[in-house]
């Protein structure tokens, strides 16, 4: 009753002659720092969809740690689309419960990642410890803040970025593990999530440098007074973070929302979608939009997870599963 009233009212307000449709809803289950990004995308896409299909669309968002969000979907949260921090968490949707097909990542361009980011350093104003590159992070007396890679998808990118740098510079995995061991010795707090680590660094004043996604670092700078307190330092080598998106096949087929869900994800690749991503500090894929924002996103020497680590499944197993390199660093005597 109330809903139809609202619908009639809305259509009257917009001067539409057609009879009101029942509202279509979509649920986008995402990870932590995309809140602002998707709020803007949703408004823009709802307007676009209204024009295209004449349907009033409501898009709901859910945010949390990437792994937790993936698990919620596996455990029955009816997400039409997932937009998570790493491919491993969407792979899990295939592995547990067959919610998406195995080839999900090939269905959309650019590894199904419409925007990218990278790992940068956020340091305190004036860079008192003179941090320029990864090597400065293992010096004695430098405190590094990064979340726990066991519980945070973002932290896994940080860890792998450091690993990629060390294995390239010092040659090989043993040297890289040694380097990571030294780096982790300088970490006084391992928060469980990326936002927690940012809070520890920004609000609690812990540490000299925060390993953060570029979009998080730029967001901290963009906040009131941020530029007076912090600076971003770009390391000589980092990793290309590709947060992927996918339709959840089992859910959209059940709810009959496949068409709109697919259109929603494709919208992210349009010039408008790319512009919104850039505005929210994510690196756009579209060459034209990227060229426009080249000043904000300086070119960096980036490795990819597939080329440097053989994909997420392998990286997860080698580094973050129980007994992986991260555990070996922390547990004395482990192989």
């Amino acid at each position, binding site marked *: 009753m109330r809903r139809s009233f609202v619908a009639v009212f809305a259509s009257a307000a917009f001067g539409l002659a057609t009879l009101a449709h029942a509202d279509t809803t979509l649920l986008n289950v995402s990870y932590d720092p995309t809140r602002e990004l998707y709020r803007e995308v949703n408004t823009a896409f709802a307007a676009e969809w209204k024009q295209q299909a004449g349907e009033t669309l409501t898009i709901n968002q859910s945010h949390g*740690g990437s*792994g*937790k969000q993936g*698990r919620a979907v*596996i455990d029955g949260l009816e997400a039409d689309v997932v937009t998570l921090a790493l491919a491993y968490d969407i792979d*899990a949707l295939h*592995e*547990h419960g067959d919610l998406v097909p195995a080839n999900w990542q090939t269905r959309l361009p650019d590894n199904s990642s419409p925007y990218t980011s990278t790992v940068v350093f956020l340091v305190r104003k004036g860079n008192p410890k003179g941090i320029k590159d990864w090597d400065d992070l293992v010096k004695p007396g430098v405190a590094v803040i990064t979340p*726990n890679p*066991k*519980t945070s998808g973002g932290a896994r990118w940080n860890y792998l970025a450091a690993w990629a740098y060390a294995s390239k510079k010092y040659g090989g995995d043993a040297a890289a593990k040694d380097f990571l061991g030294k780096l982790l010795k300088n*970490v*006084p*707090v*391992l*928060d*469980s999530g990326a936002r*927690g680590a940012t809070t520890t660094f920004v*609000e*609690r*004043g*812990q540490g000299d440098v925060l390993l953060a996604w570029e979009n998080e670092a730029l967001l901290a700078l963009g906040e009131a007074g941020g530029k007076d307190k912090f600076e971003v330092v770009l390391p000589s080598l980092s990793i290309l973070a590709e947060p992927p998106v996918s339709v959840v096949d089992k859910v959209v087929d059940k709810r009959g929302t496949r068409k709109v869900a697919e259109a929603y994800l494709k919208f992210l690749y349009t010039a408008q979608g790319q512009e919104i991503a850039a505005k929210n500090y994510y690196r756009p894929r579209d060459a034209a939009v990227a060229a426009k924002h080249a000043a904000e996103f300086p070119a960096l020497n980036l490795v990819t997870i597939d080329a440097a680590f053989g994909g997420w499944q392998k990286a*997860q197993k080698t580094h*973050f*599963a*129980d007994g992986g390199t991260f*555990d070996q660093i*922390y*547990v*004395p*005597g*482990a192989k």
Partner: protein
Amino acid sequence: MRLRGRRHALPGFGLTFGLCVSYLALIVLIPLAALALKSATLGPAQFWAAVSSPRALASYRVTFGCAALAGLINLVLGPLLAWVLVRYRFPGRKLIDALVDLPFALPTAVAGITLTALYASNGPLGRWLEAAGWKVAYTPSGITVALIFVSLPFLVRSVQPVLEQLEPDIEEAAATLGAGRLTTLWRVVLPTLWPAILAGFALAFARAIGEYGSVIFIAGNMPMVSEITPLLITAKLDQYDYAGATAIAVVLLAASFLALVAINLLQLWTVRRRSAEVR
């Protein structure tokens, strides 16, 4: 007179007992059985490997150590607080009485964030403590502080009603018989309170073992140093290792259960000993 003839406010033992058992099954036993079942998907060797890894062992030390320490500190200060609230009349007593329950009411995450802000090295308290050489936030000390906070009401609220029943006349009688203050406290007051104190300690300890929300912000979460067991469970879940997570949860559950049983026995023993003494 036989039981059957006695009048009860609620009718029918059969009905009420049946209701009691089904309610307990629904709320407690079925979820616990599901937990045990899930962990049983691991073989015995895998189960043992999951629950006895060095990181798991270190996390038990942190969790149980901090929970016990927090319980012990509240064991002293909780009854003291209850004593002041029961035995003295002063302005603001009702307010303080209400404040005791605040840790129950406050969402634990809020408590954790507040405590961290206070005790971090740039916080109003942490600044002084750290200058004095004591780092609280991001160490096991911080975990203990958070656990003291969440478990305080258990000790106060379990001791308070017993103290209210304890007439000051008894203390006066002891004094007229020549007992000093310490003797009165040790021989007259404390023996009456012990069962309540122990019950409060058991509840506080069991609660502290499972506490996650308030601890996670202040703990620092360093593997082997300040990583609590509930975080290890979360970490395992984030790797989609459901069975490993439930295996550790089963250990936690068994430990809490054993602690509760042990304290119940101790309580029973003190009551018996006391009635023997009185006789």
